[in-house]
């Protein structure tokens, strides 16, 4: 491909090739402090390409491809090329990752212990992880937590934090000194702005942590905290894992071990101030 960018995020190396310069330039700027893939060999390759040759210039639309693809993915306008790259990188992880059990969860670490937060888009897991990273926690990732089936440890995957809609203003106000990507409006998920993880998150990204607490946050409800029993946690995490089935018995062992080793709570919250207080209180009570 004409334009190429390589990066390592946690234990995973990516190579992104593109028909256009702009998305590669944005990736290079936002991932400026990140290392290169181990030995220069990426785990996954991503391609951003034009649907037809002339669509490089006329109403340019970005198709995403790579080692793993979904057949009916719709192209994105070139202005959202950065989002296309991030989506393509996530897709490779979701479909191709076999070394770690992947949980669709954000993760933050303190004193070597890891707080996992899982929930659907809009639950606030990315926002809470970003805000906690300003309050003495290390950001390990906002999208995927990587559970090592051998050790049970959680590995960091601190890609750009994907902030959506109302979460953008919340993060901008809370972190005026942070670096953000361009504001992408009118995407399939509404407005999106990427937040660059802080230098501490990148510097420590090779350091795994021991899972200590699992939360199921839910934004937009009156404050509430309830225990979630292991059977329900197991069921919800099989659904929150993109590679549980593909991992086979290693995935089963990793997940049952995780479920039986850490407490889990569902937290409902009306605003981030409540959520942060709930998180700190539950953490203190461990």
């Amino acid at each position, binding site marked *: 491909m004409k334009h190429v960018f390589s990066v390592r995020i946690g234990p995973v190396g990516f190579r992104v090739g593109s028909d256009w310069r702009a998305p590669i330039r944005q990736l290079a700027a936002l991932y400026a402090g990140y290392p290169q893939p181990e030995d220069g060999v990426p785990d996954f390759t991503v391609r951003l390409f034009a649907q037809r040759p002339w669509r490089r210039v006329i109403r340019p639309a970005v198709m995403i491809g790579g080692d793993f693809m979904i057949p009916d993915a719709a192209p994105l306008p070139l202005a959202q090329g950065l989002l296309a790259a991030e989506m393509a990188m996530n897709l490779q992880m979701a479909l191709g990752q076999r070394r770690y059990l992947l949980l669709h969860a954000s993760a933050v670490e303190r004193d070597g212990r890891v707080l996992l937060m899982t929930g659907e888009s809009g639950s606030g897991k990315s926002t809470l992880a970003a805000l906690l990273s300003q309050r003495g926690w290390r950001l390990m990732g906002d999208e995927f937590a990587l559970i090592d089936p051998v050790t049970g440890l959680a590995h960091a995957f601190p890609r750009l934090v994907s902030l959506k809609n109302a979460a953008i203003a919340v993060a901008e106000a809370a972190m005026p000194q942070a670096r953000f990507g361009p504001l992408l409006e009118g995407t399939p998920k509404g407005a999106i702005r990427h937040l660059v993880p802080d230098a501490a998150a990148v510097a420590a990204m090779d350091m795994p942590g021991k899972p200590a607490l699992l939360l199921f946050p839910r934004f937009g409800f009156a404050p509430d905290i309830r225990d979630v*029993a*292991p*059977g329900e946690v*197991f*069921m919800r995490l*099989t659904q929150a894992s993109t590679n*549980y*089935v593909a991992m*086979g*018995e290693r995935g*089963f*062992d990793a997940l*049952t071990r995780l*479920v*039986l080793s850490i407490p889990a709570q569902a937290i409902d919250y009306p605003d981030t101030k409540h959520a942060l207080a709930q998180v700190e209180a539950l953490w203190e009570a461990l």
Partner: protein
Amino acid sequence: MAAVYRAAPAEALRIVPLDAFTAIYHRASGITHLVGPPVPEILTALGPDGLTLPALIARLGDTYDLLDADEAALGARLDELVAAGLVRTA
């Protein structure tokens, strides 16, 4: 002669009790089953040697308080477990 139902051999399954639910991984198919009572109890009662349906009802009745055990209902559950590979007939 009545069919004898046997639990799948121990090496065919990974069984991890979670709480009221038990997670069972079926190695041959790679499928995870999240089951509640009385499935783990049935597997334990059948064991590798197996039991007929009436004998299973009697065994479960000895161990647990079975109120009006329904042979047809338990037979249907056993057939589901056979289809899932957790129980074998012979």
